[in-house]
């Protein structure tokens, strides 16, 4: 056998046989990492599971040839990854989009990459790790600086024409600018974050957050053409929504393509997750907003996805709690509790009657989706939920049709959440309830409903409701105290013929504003439920005040603001604001009126093209109940001090005005002094010296030519 040089061997036939087709399309190959490591015997079972997972987005015909799972020869087990060949590149793309970084089971998260992507990184020349340049650290401005105001004033953002200004509001005195008017501050609207740390503005390229004493830009979110925004209650998350679908690029990856709603982290400005519109969104109509409701501690958020699914997401990993949405056939609406109740993030929803099932009201623990309370109801048309601000009570306002199905009657069901098994109290009404409002941090509430002047037994049965004789009524309810024990809710005061379409409690409680809207404007009535003087029952109060009920209602004032449509309490409950804005489609001069909490007008100001007047919200008070009680005891001593401060302020205001008058006149005098000098140089008598006004008569000084001589000079 003679030696043959390797170079002489003709390998062409082999090369041809094993040649790699350069044109081979690697786009349809996907590497799936993070799979469980299994022995050879279980490979086929695992393949089946995975094939089932992917079958929802891509058709897999030939399971055997689709998956290739390399083995470790030493352990004869798989290496925990697989090559998957899809029918075409689109299927591969869809599979990555749908299942990348998704849980296969509780322990395994799939990591999907295109083969071409892996190849790209293998081909890269750079092998050394280069530390990316960190952007220079910029300290954030003091986000809560406005709370340190010595006078304890509140701020408000005013948006008019093209300009935005932030003002310090203090009683009737002229507002002091905290941010001087800025032209083109925003392209669409401005919003405060829920705790007041940020002022949000929009631009065609995205939204901006402003913060600190000088409202510098602290964060940018490049979501184009945003029309709607929402914050989580703790301000850590920002939700933006734009009508145009997102394209990859900038902060968005291919995963975000085609979506409209984005959740951002306000701290890092990263995109956390994006969503398309739910299928319930009306075509061409605005989407339901806010898109998500948030739990009190912002750890969970939820939305109704289609009519039969409630999706609860955890904000920790931005994924569905328990990987699945809740099946809630025909779900009406849902509300999160405003505070953590017994360490749980509760939410309540209702579903109507469906397939021989009764209508249900369910209270759910968001962390486990466990239904902690379930109540069946009959003949229900609508349910609305009202949480008491401390989460002690939950009221559901239930609407039912009368027997002849012509009218609606309402009832209230109140759940006591602090007691075991949530005992329920039911209050039935003979007619419709329009609005309901809990007093903040209290067990009292107020309802606005239709009633007959004298409730007759027929009306109670729901028959023969004569619509014309119905009257609006306002009722106050309080929890009865029997020997210091809680009793039941009792109606304490009823005021008939009080049209009020909205009931708004002062954020601090005790004071209530009832607002009725009409074409001409707003009518506002101010109420005090802890009136300190004795109240003789008013003529239209149908019930005498009960002695064992801790309430004393008094109508303080009745006010009107024509052409106004917007109203709000300031976050400290000291002022009530009504204003007219261009939001109703009309242009021109708008005005706002600032009332105090008892309905005295403090200030009225006109604004051209006023769009919004937004109070800066305050974060929840860090004081404990005991500290609050101690502080309110001290008020009486402090009143004197505050009064003096007010007097000094008023004097200061008028001093300022006098100084302004003096300065204006002085500057004019200085200018005229200069002008007179120049006029005299030209031989002109200044106008001030031409006339004298005495007793309504004008005396004119005339230049009289005494003598005129002419000299002829040769």
């Amino acid at each position, binding site marked *: 056998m003679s030696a043959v040089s390797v170079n002489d061997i003709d390998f062409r036939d082999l090369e041809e046989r094993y040649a790699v087709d350069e044109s081979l399309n690697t786009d349809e190959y996907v590497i799936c990492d993070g799979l469980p490591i299994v022995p050879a015997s279980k490979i086929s079972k695992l393949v089946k599971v995975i094939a089932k997972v992917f079958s929802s987005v891509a058709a897999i015909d030939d399971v055997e040839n689709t998956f290739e799972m390399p083995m470790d020869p030493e352990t004869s087990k798989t290496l925990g990854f697989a090559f998957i060949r899809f029918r075409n590149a689109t299927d591969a793309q869809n599979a990555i989009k749908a299942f990348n970084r998704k849980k296969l089971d509780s322990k395994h998260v799939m990591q999907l990459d295109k083969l071409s992507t892996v190849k790209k990184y293998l081909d890269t020349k750079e092998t050394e790790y280069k530390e990316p340049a960190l952007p220079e650290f910029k300290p954030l401005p003091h986000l809560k600086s406005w709370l340190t105001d010595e006078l304890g004033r509140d701020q408000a953002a005013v948006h008019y024409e093209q300009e935005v200004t932030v003002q310090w509001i203090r009683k009737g005195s002229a507002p002091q600018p905290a941010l001087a008017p800025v032209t083109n501050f925003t392209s669409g609207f401005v919003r405060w974050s829920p705790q007041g740390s940020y002022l949000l503005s929009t631009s065609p390229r995205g939204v901006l957050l402003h913060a600190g004493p000088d409202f510098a830009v602290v964060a940018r979110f490049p979501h184009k053409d945003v029309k709607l925004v929402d914050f989580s209650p703790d301000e850590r998350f920002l939700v933006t929504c734009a009508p145009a679908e997102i394209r990859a690029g900038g902060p968005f990856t291919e995963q975000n393509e085609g979506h409209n709603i984005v959740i951002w982290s306000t701290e890092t400005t990263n995109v956390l997750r994006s969503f398309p519109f739910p299928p319930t969104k009306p075509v061409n109509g605005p989407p339901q907003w806010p898109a998500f409701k948030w739990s009190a501690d912002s750890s969970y958020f939820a939305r109704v996805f289609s009519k039969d699914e409630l999706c609860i997401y955890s904000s920790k990993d931005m994924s569905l709690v328990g990987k699945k949405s809740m099946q809630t056939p025909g779900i009406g609406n849902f509300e999160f509790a405003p505070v953590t109740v017994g360490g749980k993030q509760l939410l309540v929803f209702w579903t109507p009657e469906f397939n021989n099932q009764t209508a249900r009201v369910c209270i759910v623990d968001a962390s486990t989706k466990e239904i902690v309370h379930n109540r069946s109801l009959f003949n229900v048309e609508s349910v609305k939920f009202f949480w008491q601000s401390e989460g002690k009570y939950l009221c559901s306002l239930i609407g039912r049709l009368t027997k002849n199905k012509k009218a609606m009657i309402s009832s209230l069901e109140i759940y006591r959440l602090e007691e075991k098994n949530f005992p329920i109290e039911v209050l039935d009404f003979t007619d419709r309830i329009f609005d309901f409002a809990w007093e903040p941090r209290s067990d009292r509430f107020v309802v606005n409903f239709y009633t007959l002047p004298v409730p007759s037994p027929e009306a109670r049965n729901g028959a023969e409701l004569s619509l014309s004789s119905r009257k609006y009524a306002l009722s106050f309810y309080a929890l009865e105290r029997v020997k210091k024990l809680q009793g039941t809710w009792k109606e304490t005061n009823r005021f008939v013929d009080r049209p009020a379409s909205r009931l708004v409690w002062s954020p601090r409680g005790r004071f209530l504003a009832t607002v009725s809207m009409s074409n001409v404007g707003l009518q506002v009535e101010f109420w005090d439920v802890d009136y300190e003087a004795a109240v003789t029952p008013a003529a239209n109060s149908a019930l005498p005040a009960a002695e064992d009920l801790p309430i004393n209602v008094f109508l303080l004032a009745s006010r009107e603001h024509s052409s106004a449509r917007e109203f709000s309490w300031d976050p400290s409950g000291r002022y009530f604001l009504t204003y007219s804005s261009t939001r109703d489609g009309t242009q021109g001069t708008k005005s706002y009126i600032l009332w105090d909490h008892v309905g005295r007008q403090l200030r009225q100001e006109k604004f051209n093209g006023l769009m919004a007047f937004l109070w800066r919200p305050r974060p929840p008070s860090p004081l404990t109940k005991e500290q609050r009680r101690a502080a309110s005891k001290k008020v009486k001593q402090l009143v004197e001090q505050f009064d003096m401060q007010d007097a000094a302020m*008023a*004097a200061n*205001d*008028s001093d300022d*005005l*006098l100084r302004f*008058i003096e300065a*204006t*006149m002085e*500057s*004019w005098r200085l*200018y005229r002094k*200069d*002008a007179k000098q*120049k*006029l005299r140089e*030209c031989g*002109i*008598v*200044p*106008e001030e010296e*031409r*006339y004298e*006004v005495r007793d*309504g*008569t*004008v005396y*004119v000084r005339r230049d009289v030519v005494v003598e005129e001589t002419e000299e002829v000079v040769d």
Partner: protein
Amino acid sequence: MIPIVVKGHERPINQLKYNTDGDLLFSISHDRRVCIWFSDTGELFGTTDKHGGAVNCIDIDRKSTFFITCSTDFAIQFWNLKTGELLEYEHENKEGEVVRGPMRIKYSAIPRFLQIHPDENKLLLVQDTKMNQPSAIVIYDIDMHDLENPVLKQNKVIYPKGSPYVKAVWTYDGKRIIAAHQDGSVSRTCVETGECELSAKVHNDNIVDLQMSQDRSYFITASRDETAVLLPVDGDFQTMKKKFQGDTGLNSAAISPIKDIIIAGGGKKSIEVTTSSGGKFEAHFFNKLFQADLGRVGGHFGPINSIAIHPYGTSYASGSEDGTIRIHHFDKSYFEFDYNEVIKEGVEDTE
């Protein structure tokens, strides 16, 4: 304050002007007529109508011997105030012969505005851009001491740097011109060099009126952007700027010589009146120093086109699109009113 309402014109009033002594009030109108009224009583002194088009502007000499008008018929006419006839002067006709004829100077462009120099030896004329003519201020030397032999000679033409001129007025020293431009800017031009010293945009819309204070040391402009602006002649057009916010487009504004009061008037354009409610055809009173809104005087049925205050400040007249003139003699309470005292009292009340 009961106004004297006089009607002598069939068409909109263009300008009202008092003579130096204030005994006569001149009104000119689109109806080609000049009316002269006794300002005290509103009685008619006389009318003339020798123009072939709407009369655009009028000025009267200090001794009230003659007056000059310009009109859309391309002519400037010199009148004897006593007779109401045109003056005659010697000039060269088309054939080059020296002839004596009526003092009617035909012009290549529409003369829009004119004003006699404070020394009465010059005449300033603003020509319109209509008929493809350039906007310009033309200055004439005049000698009218002998009404039998008046002399007129063109001295200088000044063209605007930017936007066309609307109106132009002499300053107190007679060496400079303040001009208002169509784009809302005002400029100060030196007559001798013809150079623009300073220009500043003070309005967002067309300036319609420009009036000097009586001693010609500061002026006021009225604009369609609903504001009137007061500025000193000297200075940078920034310091001592006072802005008066009306509630409708302004056509005219005047300065009272005896009180710190500005009267401005205007109204919605005739074409807009039918489409919106309320024409706001009111004279609007402002405090000159504090720019405060003091009150309004209504009565006209059309936009106010011109406001003139009596040289002694005892009355004012407003002329309207509806052709009427309303002469208002101020009451005693007007002279006793002191805004400064009022606001100071207001401050004391609150304390």
